């Protein structure tokens, strides 16, 4: 079973929810944690895994053999990403634009293009207590995160319950992170931004046909929250947990500590959340 944690808006508490949920679940079952926010992975700061290995993740990019090249320009014509340009006696490859589709090499009539690996980031793994931890780290300056996210997801262990921490937004990196999961938590906050971005995230779940539920963070009651509740009722999306605004939680977060390891009240809240999710999935514990 795979549970993903996403949110339209950044900074609503995805990583807090994902890490604390993983910890309470790990007391009773085999848990794997994948941090798929490869642009800014933070879960390791809270789960503190002993990271063992860093495997580079490459994408294939073209290398042109100018001895064979006749400058016919077919490769540039084929490339949908403008990553290759052919001049009179030069071929320029703009590696950061290349998506690794292999079109240029396949269609080159002279077989003058071979593909070489270009690293875009790394995967690191290690154990965090009972949790088996994996994250991807995009190299700063790289634009394309989906191939790295996809590589992180290839490590999924079907025997375990896998928790995926996604990046903010609703475009390709989030799609890559949450697709194929069995359930998706959407973390929001009771502000106009929170509501606006929650609607985007709910649309995304519908488009991917993913079941999901909402966690409201920094809950204080009041108007902002009523409009989120109203929205969720209308959309038929359950609100699984309201996390009260708590100065102690914020300062534990600031220091990289997981709430469930320090505050019994939060342990109860997250155990309740885990139960609600498993109940929603009608899975026996």
């Amino acid at each position, binding site marked *: 079973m795979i549970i993903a944690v996403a949110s339209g808006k950044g900074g609503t508490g995805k990583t807090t929810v994902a890490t604390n949920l993983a910890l309470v679940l790990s007391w009773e079952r085999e848990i794997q944690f994948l941090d798929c926010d490869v642009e800014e992975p933070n879960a390791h700061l809270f789960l503190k895994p002993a990271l063992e290995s860093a495997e580079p993740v490459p994408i294939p990019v073209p290398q042109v053999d100018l001895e064979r090249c006749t400058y016919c320009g077919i490769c540039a014509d084929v490339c949908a990403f403008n990553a290759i340009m052919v001049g009179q006696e030069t071929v320029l490859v703009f590696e950061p634009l290349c998506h690794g589709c292999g079109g240029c090499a396949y269609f080159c009539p002279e077989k003058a293009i071979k593909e070489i690996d270009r690293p875009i980031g790394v995967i690191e793994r290690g154990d965090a207590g009972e949790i088996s931890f994996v994250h991807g780290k995009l190299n700063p300056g790289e*634009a394309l995160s989906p191939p790295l996210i996809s590589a992180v997801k290839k490590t999924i262990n079907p025997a375990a319950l896998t928790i995926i921490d996604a990046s903010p937004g609703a*475009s390709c990196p989030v799609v890559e992170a949450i697709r194929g999961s069995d359930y998706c938590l959407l973390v929001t906050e009771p502000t106009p931004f929170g509501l606006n971005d929650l609607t985007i995230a709910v649309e995304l779940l519908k488009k991917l046909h993913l079941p999901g539920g909402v966690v409201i963070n920094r809950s204080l009651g009041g108007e902002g929250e009523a409009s989120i509740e109203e929205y969720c009722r209308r959309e038929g999306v359950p609100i699984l947990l309201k996390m009260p605004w708590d100065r102690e939680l914020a300062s534990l977060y600031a220091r990289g500590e997981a709430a469930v390891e320090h505050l019994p009240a939060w342990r109860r809240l997250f155990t309740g959340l885990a139960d609600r999710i498993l109940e929603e999935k009608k899975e026996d514990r």
Partner: protein
Amino acid sequence: MEEIVVISGKGGTGKTTLTASFAVLAGGDAVLADADVDAANLSLLLTPQELESHPFIASDIAVLDRDRCTECGLCRELCRFDAISEDYRIDPLSCEGCSVCSRACPEKAINMEEVLSGHWFLSQTPYGKLVHARLGIAEENSGRLVTLVRNEARELAKEEKKRFLLTDGPPGIGCPVIASLSGATRALIVTEPTVSGIHDLKRVLLVCRQFEVPAAVCINRCDLDEDNTQKIEAFCAAESIEVVAKIPFYREITEALVKATPVVNHTRGPAAEDIARLWSNISGNSSS
């Protein structure tokens, strides 16, 4: 023209809150751009009147004609994105639009069709014109849409002879962030004194360096954790990055957000004074 881009690495540190106040403080001498096209929020604070709406078509997607398809398997073999299933259905979410399948198909059974990836808008706000966008749900090409938004905003700023192009950037360090930074004269990185804030600040700063955009740092909610605030200051000093503001947690900032109004319009108290000082610091205005 000064092109100031507000970014953060980590989401939710206060980019949009600050940018909205800067928009007010620029006193009409700015064009505004919202480059967080995934989850655009600046317009929620600036009461825009939409002037123009344009479709954004950036990519093609492969569509298979089942009548022509002989299921030879070549497309499935060539597709690097696993977008074609065993029963020859193309998953539009996986299709990268590379057109390799379409070109290679011996039966010409695959066509590339344009996709509407989103919309971009030109709006009038009380503080100047705003260029913003909405990327379609689950769409690609956010980087290209950001580039389009910024180019439109830049042309407008030139045309209207404005002194500032103010951009509210996206979180992260990937393609939309890189697209936001291109051509910028200054990046303001908004961080917070948490382990995540620090970690993400360091990564986004590397991106600024790589694209040669000078950066300054604002520590938001600096009183949340004094130790971490000191760590950020020490890091910035070692990296020769100026910390242009430390803004403590103010209830008024949350109130303004809940009321969907820029902080400097909501209060004249210390929160507004801190933000005004930050603006004069990064905009080079010594007045105020």
